[in-house]
């Protein structure tokens, strides 16, 4: 939760267009945003800023979304942080891998920004 009382959302994607798109949509919806360009940055940002939610792209260079999720779950501070994975890989075992890593939800690419917004709301509301 940020100073102004808005939830803080971490968004990580190596595609700057998507990063911008998602950020724009969620900012419009009134969330505070912190961006990361890869898994390593995402974990670092999460530990520093303690966001209320992380949206992680699966296919990222160096540390991918699965690995980032796994690392977040290893830290006490981020252990319970909700994680939504963005994935273009929609085969069964890909989804299963995501849940195994500790993700709370996943959104298939291509997704509608609106749909993503409602997922975010749902995950935050669940808490």
């Amino acid at each position, binding site marked *: 939760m940020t100073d102004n009382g808005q939830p803080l959302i971490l968004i990580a994607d190596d595609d700057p267009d998507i990063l911008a798109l998602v950020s724009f949509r969620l900012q419009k919806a009134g969330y505070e945003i912190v961006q990361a360009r890869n898994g390593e940055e995402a974990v670092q940002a999460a530990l520093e800023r303690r966001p209320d939610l992380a949206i992680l792209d699966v296919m990222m260079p160096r540390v991918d979304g699965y690995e980032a999720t796994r690392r977040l779950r290893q830290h006490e501070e981020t252990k319970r942080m909700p994680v939504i994975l963005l994935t*273009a890989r929609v085969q069964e075992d890909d989804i299963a891998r995501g849940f195994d890593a500790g993700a709370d939800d996943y959104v298939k*690419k*291509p997704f509608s920004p609106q749909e993503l917004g409602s997922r975010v709301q749902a995950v935050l509301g669940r808490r």
Partner: protein
Amino acid sequence: MIRPPSAGKPPRLVLRFALYSALALALAGGGILLFVRHEAQVQAEKELTADATRAAGSLSTELHRTDLEETVKSPARLKVLDDLIQPELMGGVVRVKLWRGDGTVTYASDHTLIGSHVDAEELQEVLAGGTVRETGRLNDEGGQGKNIKVISAYVPLRLAGEQQPRGVLEFYNDYAPIEAQVGATVKPVALALGLALVLLFASLFPILHQVTKALEHRSQRLEQQADELERTLNERRQAVAGLREAESRYRALVEQLPLVTYVSAIDKPGFSAYVSPQIDGLLGYSPDEWLATPNLFWRVVHPDDLERVRNEHRTGYAANQPFSTQYRLIARDGRVVWVEDQVIVISDATGAPVQAQGFLLDITHRKTAEVALSDSEERFRTLVANVPGVIFRCSIDNDWTMEFLSDEIEELVGYPASDFIANEVRTFASVIHPEDAPVLSAEVEAAVADDRPYTIEYRTAHRDGSIRHVVERGQAILGRDGERKLDGAIFDVTQRWTAENERLKLASIVESSDDAIMAATAKGHLSSWNSGAERVFGYTAEEVIGKPISILAPLDNEDEPVLILDRILAGQAIAHHETVRKRKDGTLIDVSFTFSPLRDVSGAVIGASAIAHDITERRRSDAERERLLLELADQNERLRELDRLKDEFVALVSHELRTPLTSIRGYLELVLEEEAGSLTEEQRQFLGVVERNAHRLLALVGDLLFLAQVEAGKLSLDIGAVDLSAIAAESVETARPIAEEKEVTLTLATGPLALIAGDHSRLVQLLDNLISNGVKFTPPGGRVDVRVKSQRGNAVIEVRDTGMGIPSEEQQHLFERFFRTAKATEQAIPGTGLGLAISKAIVEAHGGQIAVASADGTGTTFRISLPIRQTQPATEEPVEELAL
């Protein structure tokens, strides 16, 4: 033979006498001669010694010491000495020498001898004061001149005033005067002796001659007597030899006759005087043994005949007549020998029988034959009963009327022999197979005509209806009543016939077999060879029968057949033995053998049989198959690899396509929501086109990914209870705007249908596909009818359109990926060719079936049937058709 001295000898006696007399006279003459010579020589030597001694005396004053101490060399001295010692002047000697005591000649009348040295022992004797004489040759110690025979004398040489001789003087004188003196003495003596000899002969010769004559006469007489004696002796010898020859001839004759000759004394009963050696062959006793053993004869007579033979002999002797009798004797080895005994009785001057001469003839064979003859009738009956066949005598008529028929007939035809005798109950013709009867008649008729035996095979019928094969042998004979009859025998050969048939059948099976079938003897020689074997190995039967089995073996494995044969002979069978054999043309072939022992009736192994199958082709095709399988596996591996690459590619592509599409759609959405400012109507319309196409692209990516999943076998269904009717309604509604736009009538008819187990979203996709397809391919004014119903436990969905239809040749490809019909392509109807492939995959994943029925130009119907897994009563009711 000793001969008296010959008559010509007396003159030789005279000659010998004359010779001896001459020899005696010659010896006497010789003795006188030697005596005279000796006397002459001694005289001559004495004279020579005296001459030498005289000369030595005269020289003692003339000679210097040096003449006897050193060889005289100076010519002056030599001249002095030569003048002093002139041999001619010294009694006519031929040579003079002066010797030094050590044997050196210091001077010689022959100068060449001066200085010569001879070890003459005589010198020492002479130096001691004696004298020595010799005979020899002048040049025995060297020198010149004629080497005449000489006598020599050595005398000591003393110098004047000296007692001791200082040297030796030697004189040589010619021997010839001595010989001349001897010759003069001998001549008168020889003349006297010769005269004496002649006188002796003249007085003795007449006496000698007379004596010789007397002797000659005497010796002639002696010679005559000796010749006579000789002649007489020879005659005697010849007579004796002739006698012996005759005797041995008769004896040989007697002893070679095939009978025993004997002589026995009647007054000494049981004692034989002579028996010929054949007794040994007849009874096993040697003649010596026979003669030495009293009463042996009576002991070997058969006990049953003994009394009779005694009586016959006694009667025969009493009658004094030759007689003959027959009886049995028992040989040493127990044989019973029948003999005929022919006896001649010899009487003495008073007429009393003294000797029996006779012979024993071996008649055993004759007797045996007689006995056999008497038994023959009985034997005939027994034999006939024992013959394993029917013996008969019949008339040569149409009925074969039987005169005799052995009981064996009952075995053959089931009726007793008595039935046939004289055609009592039935004729023999009635049991002959009708087809064979004419042949039998014809053969018998021909044989009778030729008067030869015949053999014929025919069939007879048994009472039980079975047919027997028989062989009949027979011959016509002249019966006692003068009628010609048929004698013969009939043998049942049914078994043999059957066996032969069986054998022929087997043989033809063997012969026609494709496999090589052969047999070998225990010694390893091929004994049978079928045409299959000819094909497989290339040899004809004629070429291999009798050859060793090793001819079929390749060179590097020549022993194998023999090793196998050994195992077979040990009773082992070997099946499916695969090995290599060599054909006649040398090529090697792969064969599979099955070997078994061949046994004779007793079960003993007498050889081996082999069945060989040429598996060269099979081996080759096995290898080919192996190779193809490997190739296939290889290809599969490559295909799998390609497939994996394709899957990776599809996954990558879909990801790489989705990410930009996400951006496109996301930003479009923002723009269309006027988050970036308000839009004009035209802008909104254009952006709508972009969005639609982005959506199409996305759908395509989704379809590709779906199919990749299906093919990877990774399609999984999210199964739940699904209401197909609801899904159909939903899909129809989805398609409705497009249908209306195209002026296509779209209807849905649903019957009562249970919920089925299925994946909701996949089934939606399926129905969307089919309905949108129908609409797409139906021209304006047409219709698309969708029906959902329950049928025989299945949920059935039908989508029927009135579209352009699908030609039947295209229908089979309809469900393939990327397949598009020719018309769809021609008319540029949009589509990827993936829809039906996906539909089929979804249906099959649900365990259902999809089928298409279409006629070109009149429309197409897709029919899907899915099993209803969740049981719920489903009644088939009339489908309610609803226009939607």
